[in-house]
């Protein structure tokens, strides 16, 4: 069970990095629009 939690955490952190990058792009786009 703890192995699965570590794996889920690894997936979540990795996608959080990608999501963070996408959010940063969104903010940059909005700043340029303003």
């Amino acid at each position, binding site marked *: 069970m703890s192995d699965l939690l570590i794996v889920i955490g690894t997936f979540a*952190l990795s996608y959080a*990095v990608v999501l963070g990058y996408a959010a940063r792009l969104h903010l940059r786009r909005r700043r340029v629009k303003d």
Partner: protein
Amino acid sequence: MNRTRILLGTAALAVAVGLWFAFTSPVDRLQGEFSRIVHIHAPFLWVAFLAFGVTALASIMWLVKKTPRWDRLGEASAELGVVFTVTGLFTGMVWGQAVWGRAWDWGDARLATTAVMLFVYLGYLALRKATPDPEMRARRSAILGTIAVVQVPLVYFSVYLFRTLHQTPSIRPDGASMPREMLIALLVNFLAITYLYVTLLFARLDVARAEARVSVQPDLAGDAVKPPRLTEVEDV
């Protein structure tokens, strides 16, 4: 709803499908749950290779055509390549800690060459930040972007050239060393994460185009926005 939003929405759906496959596919008998990490580790690094390949192609096209769109494409793809290399290395470190008993080993050829590749592309992005003149920036990064791509085959073939800790690829032209269900799950994740890369590339190019438009706007206003010249101030 604009094109970027539709692409990002469908990419999120594709990633969700990939996650479902990753967590319902069978696991390796020895590695257990940790073998599921292959479903993001390998696709992330494949996308990083693809991204740096696109940067090289865009760099060559800039050297030939000298149009800003190729420069923007090179930068956008390199940035994404760095993001996917970082996540690929992170997932590999967790997997390595669980299976090898260590997260990192500088003596391993695959790990060391991947780290060097990451540092070179971080250098590529730093070089762009450090060069204010757009023409010079495009030229310098096009040259580096063209040369730096030699690392991609070096990283890929490092496991054949130096037999150290990292295994050889599980999917080869002569077949795959995993059960069919696992292979299908891996291929679904390869497709989903490649689509995610394409989507983010479009979003990044949208930002680059918008920023380029804003940066040329003061010129469109002509003399009205020019500050007074020093000679004019002295006359007063």
